[in-house]
């Protein structure tokens, strides 16, 4: 859980360089955002997992998790705005 939060926090800084300074001030285990960092990372990991499977159902899952990652990203950016 802790590692997922850390990876999610780091991934966000990679994807959003213009928000990096702001994100760096927020600890990965922040009480309000830690759960979202974890959700963000889990969504990207799940999208990656399903993308390796060549079935229609897996493609649907990949799209779903990708959309979920983007929605979670928006949640985080909204919270820190």
């Amino acid at each position, binding site marked *: 859980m802790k590692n997922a939060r850390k990876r999610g926090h780091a991934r966000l800084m990679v994807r959003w360089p213009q928000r990096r300074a702001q994100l760096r001030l927020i600890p990965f285990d*922040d*009480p*309000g*955002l830690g*759960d*979202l960092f*974890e*959700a963000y990372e*889990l*969504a990207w990991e*799940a999208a990656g*997992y399903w993308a390796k499977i060549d079935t229609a159902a897996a493609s649907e*899952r990949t799209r*779903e*998790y990708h959309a*979920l990652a983007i*929605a*979670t990203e928006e*949640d985080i950016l*909204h*919270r820190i705005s």
Partner: protein
Amino acid sequence: MDEDHSARICEQPDNDAVLKALEHVLASQALRLSERNRRFLSFVVRQTVEGHAERIKAYAIGVDVFGRDEDFDPAVDPIVRIEANRLRTALAAYYDGPGQADGIVITVPRGSYVPTFQSRAGSGDAPGPRLPACDKSAEGRATIVIHDHSRATDAETELRGYLFTEAFLSALQSAGFKLRLVPKRECSAAALAIDALLTEPGNAYALDIAVWPPGEKQRFSWRLIDLRTGEVLASVFRELAVAATSSFGLIDEFASEATSTITPMLAARPGAGL
């Protein structure tokens, strides 16, 4: 971004108050939550209130709320864990901000999907939240009492009734009605709810809904009744082929169509408040 709302928490509220708190928080536009996560919240709260907390597992939520099939494996399909995190965060933000005056706090603790409910001290005279009826934006609008009359003999039909109710709640709420939900399996509660409603000013209507037992198709019905006169304003049914994973859209669509029928019907009545 912290969880200050827990500092003022003091006591365990009763089930009716919890359901009112659920209705209130779900009605709030300030709660940043998707429609399916509102269903998620509603599902875990209602299961808990009805004494079925032991059913609240990732698998059950995946299947019943997120429409996964029986092969659902939370280990490789972490939808429930992800959405639970988002739900937890959204609730915390709500109770720390726009919902800080709410009398009851609903939380989903980490490590569990079973919610907890606690009253907050110093939140006013009533232990419950402010009801939508107290909101200026809801003043004068027609009130609809939803009562699910299904006599489910199996879990599948019970679930359909639950989904049908939820679909109506969502659609009618979006249309701006004040809503009251009669608890299932409590006939005395139904009478009390209606008595209480008739003492309120404004228009009051009953929406009786039902899902009839299984078969190749299931009959979903709704009937709108003027509570003051007993007049039946509309009575509609539809038979839906409800496969395990594809029925959510059909049920939502039927409830949405019903709301489109009900809204202008009530608006055209004398003294209508919509």
